[in-house]
């Protein structure tokens, strides 16, 4: 029984990590008032960029160096998701396009890029079979050396690759930056009321661009974690599923706080797979249980809007483009 619970907790954390990356990235983006619905697409691109770079590297050498595997794929993933976020920032900020439409187009585009290259990469290189980056996957999955010696505790909480700890670290740092620094204050001010922030001398454009791109890069790491650590360097089309949308749901559930996003992600990760761990479920009721994360999010959304507590509201200018002369 204990070991079942332990393996459930372990699995919930593993499922939660991509969600945590995604929701932390989206929180930073949304705090400046940009509702980036392109996050699901960005996460796909973050994953596939790493896969492409890793594939090229592993095929260019007979003995891939683990550290290089990690660095190359990490850099490619960050670059890919930064590029996509830049498209979003450029369209919504400089060209003042509608955020919802841009975000959805970005998701279509990003998921398309992921599935296209995932499905055609080998054909483009005239090879057959399926993508599987063994060395890179192993490098990402390397856990702390002493984790195995700590018994059940080590197995449950310390058996992850380095990206898992990075996710938690990034969430904590974002929380600190958002709440305790001048930069964070400026960022939040822009999200609440860009005109006021502008009048106070804050460079609205630069903050929005940077927050969107950095947020996108963090979210992209979620895709990278999924393909490198969770599936150990293998790509299946649509394998990442709707986790990107779930990450956006967590932003609401965590009330736009990166620290709460940590435990929220693990709860959602748990809800995502809990149907496997409840014994005696019919396959149809499993489908109903998979509905839980979304229903819970809806309830939270309704609850916070009914309570109208100030600190629980979305950033006030969320979803609106800012144009200085448009008052």
């Amino acid at each position, binding site marked *: 029984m204990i070991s079942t619970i332990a393996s459930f907790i372990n699995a919930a954390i593993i499922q939660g990590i991509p969600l945590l990356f995604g929701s932390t990235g989206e929180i930073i983006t949304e705090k400046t008032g940009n509702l980036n619905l392109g996050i699901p697409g960005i996460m796909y691109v973050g994953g596939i960029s790493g896969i492409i770079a890793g594939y090229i590297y592993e095929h260019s050498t007979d003995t891939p160096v683990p550290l290089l595997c990690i660095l190359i794929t990490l850099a490619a993933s960050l670059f890919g998701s930064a590029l996509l976020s830049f*498209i979003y920032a450029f369209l919504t900020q400089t060209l003042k396009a*509608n955020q919802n*439409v*841009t975000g*959805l187009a970005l998701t*279509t*585009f990003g998921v398309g890029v992921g599935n296209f290259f995932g499905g055609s990469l080998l054909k483009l290189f005239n090879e057959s079979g399926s993508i599987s980056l063994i060395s890179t996957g192993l490098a990402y999955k390397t856990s702390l050396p002493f984790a195995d010696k700590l018994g059940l505790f080590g197995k449950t909480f310390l058996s992850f690759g380095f990206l898992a700890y990075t996710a938690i670290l990034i969430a904590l740092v974002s929380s600190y930056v958002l709440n305790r620094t001048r930069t964070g204050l400026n960022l939040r001010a822009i999200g609440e009321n860009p005109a006021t922030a502008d009048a106070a001398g804050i460079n609205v454009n630069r903050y929005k661009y940077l927050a969107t791109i950095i947020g996108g890069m963090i979210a992209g790491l979620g895709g990278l974690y999924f393909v490198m650590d969770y599936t150990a360097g293998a790509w299946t089309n649509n394998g990442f599923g709707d986790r990107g949308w779930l990450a956006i749901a967590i932003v*609401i559930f965590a009330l736009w706080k990166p620290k709460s996003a940590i435990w929220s992600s693990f709860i959602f990760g748990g809800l995502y797979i809990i149907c496997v761990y409840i014994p005696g479920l019919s396959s149809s009721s499993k489908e109903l249980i998979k509905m839980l994360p979304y229903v819970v999010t809806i309830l939270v959304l309704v609850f916070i809007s009914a309570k109208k507590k100030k600190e629980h509201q979305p950033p006030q200018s969320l979803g609106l483009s800012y144009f200085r002369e448009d008052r």
Partner: protein
Amino acid sequence: MNKPEKAAREPLFHIAKRNGIAWWKAWIIRGVAILASLLVCALIIVLLTKQNPLEVYGAMIKGSFGSQRKFWALLQNLAMLLCISLAVTPAFKMKFWNLGAEGQVLFGGLCSMVLMFEIGDRLPNAVLILAMLIASILGGVLWALIPAVFKAKWNTNESLFTLMMNYVAIQLVSFAIMVWVPSGSSVMGVVNASTKAGWLPDLFGKKYLINILIVAILTVVMFVYLRFSKHGYELAVVGESENTARYIGINVKKVIIRTMILSGAVCGLAGFLLVSGTNHTISKDLAGGNGFTAIMVSWLAKFNPLLMVITSFLIVFLQRGAGEIATNFNLNTSIADILTGIIIFFIIGCEFFINYQIKSTKSGKEGK
């Protein structure tokens, strides 16, 4: 790079909102944007397939119009995308971000399927189809009404709410399929294949003609409703400015709920047409992402139902054409999504040049 001294220096240009632009200028800008996007797409296709882009575009045209069967399939896809686009339009014009069309179509379709599957053999066909139609519309309305009521009452964020409703609908459909197909293949076959109970009849021997006609009529009705009716005027005012609407005595909550009922009803109708008139089965991909694509179609057409015929044609043509390229060159069909994304980026980007103008500071008379 943005040092304080720079503020004192005069920028080379500044951006100002246009008061208006001649319609033909706006269309030239859009045309240029579409051409530019096609060039970028051609470049990508050439890089991937190493073929002459003209040949590739030729293959795309063949994929859409190559045979009568392909042409009818194109029309059918066009009709469905257009129908969902028409559904989301009144809500969008009101600035109600209904991202839940996917779920509304799906739930509407599910309602039809329940009747078709459970009592398909007990009712005369005409009664059954009518019952399915009503059930679908009510289902779509219910799925749209829930977020609308909370929006009207507590101003709950509708884009996130409707987004989540999609996944609730998806899981409901998965649940229903699991109940109906207990074998575990989780794929539902064609329902009532022998009796054709609950199937929309073929008109003049053409399979999807009835769908296409219904959507064509709906397009005109929606155009008239938005352009000439009092309801259409009211929702446009609410979209432009809620305060203005309240000031001139429009009941904003009532308009929100009424418009979402309409939006959900048309989504439900789309679900009915897909289940009864097209697929005769259901899966969680019933709407196939069209609920999201419809948002872009509607936006690109500036909420004008007649223009939506063109914009949805553009998207469907691309998807079918890219599908043809993918099979010809043994590539993944997702290339359609990449091309769609690029073209939409260009078109939404070009709106900037229609709504704003870039003025050079030096030539302008008004200097600060």
